[in-house]
């Protein structure tokens, strides 16, 4: 009986979560731009979407910035985590404390503070302006702490003498890092990189403050479109994004279960 009530409750909550998404999907195929009237099935909003050069440009920006920032932040964050791990307790806690600041800080403060930094640098240098480069730098800088946070727990489980042992055996610091430490912390690095990519794709607030005229990512474009009122092309765009995410998540989860299953087979 109680189980039944909980089942109904879960169903209602799923409805609450998915209703808006379903509505958008349905409306993306509505011939009429109205939200309360069904004008028949049509792909006109999708055609409009693909014909729109702004949307294509924003998509390119979003993806290149997400890839580049995740890649660079992963390199910086991993090396930093290895370095931090070697510090004495006192210094370590200070460095970790400062690293954690952006995680706890309101995003809007991170956004305006980076904007002020870039404006200051531009004024000092006497050249450049807010745009793609500042956007990329901002994304790298908010991603680095998350990579460090993902890698640190893995390092803590390692023997502290591993690095020195490698160097005693004649490895350079770089070799010790690449051949001894990295293979052991790989899962943490992958988690960090995925997290960084996701955060970058989803970010709006920091991007909003650190980009300049004419450079938008998808979030900024959606925001400016939504501010001008409801636009059916956004429905088409969200439907495509939602389906992409669904397929990606499905593939990832299928890969994971297959891995688990093969591990199970090996054990038996």
């Amino acid at each position, binding site marked *: 009986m109680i189980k039944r009530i909980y089942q109904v*409750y879960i169903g209602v909550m*799923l409805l609450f979560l998915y209703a808006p998404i379903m509505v958008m999907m349905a409306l993306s195929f509505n011939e009429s731009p109205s*939200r*309360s009237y069904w004008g028949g099935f049509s792909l006109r909003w999708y055609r409009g979407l693909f014909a729109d050069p702004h949307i294509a440009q924003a998509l390119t920006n979003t993806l290149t910035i997400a890839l580049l920032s995740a890649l660079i932040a992963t390199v910086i964050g991993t090396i930093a985590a290895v370095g931090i791990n070697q510090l004495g307790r006192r210094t370590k806690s200070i460095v970790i404390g400062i690293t954690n600041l952006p995680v706890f800080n309101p995003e*809007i403060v991170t956004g305006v503070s980076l904007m002020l930094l870039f404006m200051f640098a531009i004024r000092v240098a006497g050249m450049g302006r807010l745009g793609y480069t500042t956007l990329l730098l901002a994304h790298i800088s908010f991603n680095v702490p998350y990579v460090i946070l993902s890698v640190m727990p893995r390092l803590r489980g390692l023997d502290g003498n591993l690095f020195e042992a490698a160097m005693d055996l004649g490895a350079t610091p770089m070799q010790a*890092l690449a051949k001894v430490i990295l293979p052991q912390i790989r899962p943490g690095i992958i988690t960090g990189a995925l997290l960084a990519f996701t955060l970058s794709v989803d970010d709006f607030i920091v991007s909003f403050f650190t980009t300049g005229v004419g450079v938008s990512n998808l979030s900024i474009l*959606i*925001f400016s479109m939504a501010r001008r009122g*409801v636009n059916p092309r956004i429905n088409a765009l*969200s439907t495509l994004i939602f389906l992409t995410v669904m397929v990606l998540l499905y593939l990832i989860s299928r890969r994971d279960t297959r891995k688990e299953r093969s591990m199970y087979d090996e054990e038996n």
Partner: protein
Amino acid sequence: MLKRIFVYPYILWMFLFIAAPLLIVLWFAITDTGADGQTVFTFYHVARFFRPAFAGEPFFQRLYIVVLTRSIWIAVLTTMVCFVLGYPLAYALAKFFGHRSILLFLFLVPLWMNFLLRTYAWMTILEQNGVLNALLSLVGLPTIDILFTDTAVVLGMVYNFLPFMVFPIYSVLKDMDNSVIEAAQDLGANRVQVFFRVVLPMSVPGIISGLTMVFMPSVTSFIIPNLLGGGQFILVGNLIEQQFMRVGDWHFGSAMSAILIALILLMMGFIKLIDRQPRNKDGPAEGVLY
């Protein structure tokens, strides 16, 4: 010494991209640019946030204080609704459906959608000629006009932040030792007693991180009020955005950011204080059992 080589570049990076930006905000907050372009130290902009519009104006009626208390109120409301909706959900997922990962998966998927799109979806539903009103008039009910109101803002925030409440509580409940519950039942506790005296106290760590993870983004959010609350609905986040992007008063904008940081730090300190108390006494498990 050689092994430290990896940390130095990062310390430089950390100073440049984490410490320096915050210091610049602080710098702008406590300075002003004079008429002759000189920078002078002043607390004018910080004080401006608290200053009365006319002599003797009651504290809580001052413009920016009203905005601040409204932001906190909306965030408290959002957090409460998320808790009331989220706890039973986490409980149901952990207790009855934990083995079915497909359900968890379904609750996670919307999180992967851009959150602007999720908020935008509600605009489509709530607006005057929107889906909700179309449905209402279809069944002969009067239409409602809730887009651009408090209700819409809270709804949008609950929709976006609910998973942040559900997942920490879920993970605590899922790992809960079932034998503790059985022990309570063996000792004669009924269902209600087991819940309120065993399950609920043991899920406190999850509840606290859930409350924090919902409250923090709610109090500083500016996009949800911007889209669902319309122009006239202003929270602290909107004020800061206005100062930087439209008014161009960096000093006042920075002063407000500094006040917001102080507020967040205060709340985190407060949460730490409550969080620590029960565990300092006698540890969670014993505290519940005796």
